[in-house]
């Protein structure tokens, strides 16, 4: 059991400290897009990036899943968690328009939130009255995607690993006495 615990802890430490993306600019920009420089996008708030494009959710999320996996050097993709659009005000920033919000996460590591605002269906028909295209740099785009990356530093990861390892150790020892 002792050996199993040591191996497990060592593997967990390697997994948690494994190098990966450290900032939002490590992720690719959406293909054929205009980078948003609107207030709060890309240039003002750290680790936020906004893109106007004609890419819809079916393309955008798998694109960033692949990109995140590539950046993290893992043989498996990050987990996709679907959030309610209203959570965008918390996860991205306040007043973020949203029709979908997904979180790409490697458990016990960092999260990349992918928020999309799609006033139109992919066939070009509008979803609601008042839907308008985004006019940026002389282009006209159907969708806006905003990313927010939540990195954590290596000391935090190490301390969390230490906390987990100690908790497992204490739980095991006490559990044997109680059960």
């Amino acid at each position, binding site marked *: 059991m002792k050996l199993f615990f040591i191996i497990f802890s060592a593997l967990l430490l390697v997994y948690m400290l494994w190098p990966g993306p450290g900032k939002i600019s490590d992720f690719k920009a959406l293909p054929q897009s205009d980078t948003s420089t609107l207030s709060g996008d890309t240039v003002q708030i750290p680790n936020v990036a906004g893109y106007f494009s004609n890419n819809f959710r079916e393309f955008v999320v798998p694109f960033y899943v692949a990109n995140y996996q590539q950046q993290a050097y893992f043989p498996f993709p990050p987990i996709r968690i679907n959030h309610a*659009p209203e959570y965008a005000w918390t996860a991205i920033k306040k007043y973020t328009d949203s029709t979908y919000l997904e979180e790409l996460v490697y*458990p016990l590591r960092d*999260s990349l939130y992918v928020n999309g605002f799609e006033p139109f269906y992919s066939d070009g028909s509008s*979803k609601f009255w008042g839907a308008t295209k985004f006019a940026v740099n002389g282009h006209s785009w159907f969708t806006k995607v905003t990313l927010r990356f939540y990195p954590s530093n290596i000391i935090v990861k190490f301390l969390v690993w230490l906390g*987990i390892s100690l908790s497992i150790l204490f739980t095991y020892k006490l559990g044997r006495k*109680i059960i």
Partner: protein
Amino acid sequence: MRKFLFWFITFIFAFIPLYPKFPLFNISGTFVAVRLEDILIAIAIFLWGISVILSGSLKDLVNDRLNQAILLFFFVGIVSTFSAIFLTHSVVPHLSFLHFLRRVEFILLLPLVVDVVKKKSQLITVLVVLALTVLAVNLYALGQQYLDFPVISTSNSEFAKGLILRLTPGARVNSTFAGHYDLAVFLTMTITILTSLFFVLKKRFRLPVIILGGLSLFVLVMTAARQSFFAAFAGMMLVFVLANKKKYIFLFVVATIVILLYPSQLRDRLVSTITVNLFQQGARYQGKTQDQQIRSKLNIPTLAIKTSSQSASASSFASPSGKLATDIAPGEPVNTTQLGVFRSFEIRLNIEWPRAIEAFIKNPFLGTGYSSIDIATDNDFLRSLGEVGLLGTIALILVFVEIGKRIFLAFKSDTKLIRFFSVGVFSMMIAFLINGLFIDVLEASKVASLLWLMLGLGLAAGQI
């Protein structure tokens, strides 16, 4: 000091159920407020801490296996909070820390009571105070229903400011508990304990206990809380089995069937649970216009959509007769009782439980921290997994297992009162955990505090 602490804690036993949930001061970012009882509990814990240090019993306390399990639970809570703030970024730091402190506040009541209640006379004193408290809570509930007594509720952020309300038609009583579910859980605990004590009492005390138990059951039915009714049933059954009073079981089952057959909101909700939630029956609202039908498929159903102007202008959800809920959406049951039951389950199934599971996936060992999965999950086990992960949940399970084992040992006590009271407390704990399958009982301040107080009393009784 110990004597003073005993009277102080006896006062807290009565104060927590009786004092309405008036906020003392508010915390930014949440409508959960600090209340007077938090201050009283903090004072009690502080004084107890001093007395422990002065009496030199700190080492003994720390060496106790149950206290070690509690300390482990706190340790995982601290690591989880740290991870939530700095690794998963899933909490507002001060809220997470305060939620952690809430757990500490509630759970420390257990060792405090164990340490303070040392004599049989003290146990009896607390039980008498509790019986009078239960009577007052029940009478106040009846007053709300029939005499328009004030209602204090925390069911939404506006009510939680301490508004004085009155019961509206069809609303359920909450007595001094600010929520009908909390009251129902309290009554579940009460009924279970009273059932066990019934067998200990001399004949002249049995009638008052039957009246108090019957009154509690009546108010429990008035709350129409299905889960708590089921938990009370399970708790009482367990008492009969563990106390070796099996001849009462048949009578009890018949009485339960009679209660369920008698027309009440509880019966209607139970029937709707089966017909609507399990068998998907009942007439559903189809949507009067194309506008409503399309909108209900959007994830933002309030968005104006592109349909004919005639369709959009006729899209009122409220029916002129008032028979339909004003906010009904296509696909929901038309009947208002069925609608309430339907939403109650759908919210859990589609929002609250998946949110907790997602939090668990993000950090299986530590969860995403206290307060990270909103104010309610309506399942304490999923909530625990989501907030403090496997490690926190296992630590909490160890606490309950150790408590259960100790109370179980007291079943063999030579003193009849302690034997039956232990059976009652054990059954109450199981009934409480059954409530936790659909309600966040371990976080509901009043009933959570009372749980740890009662478990402490159960353990103290075992040591007398």
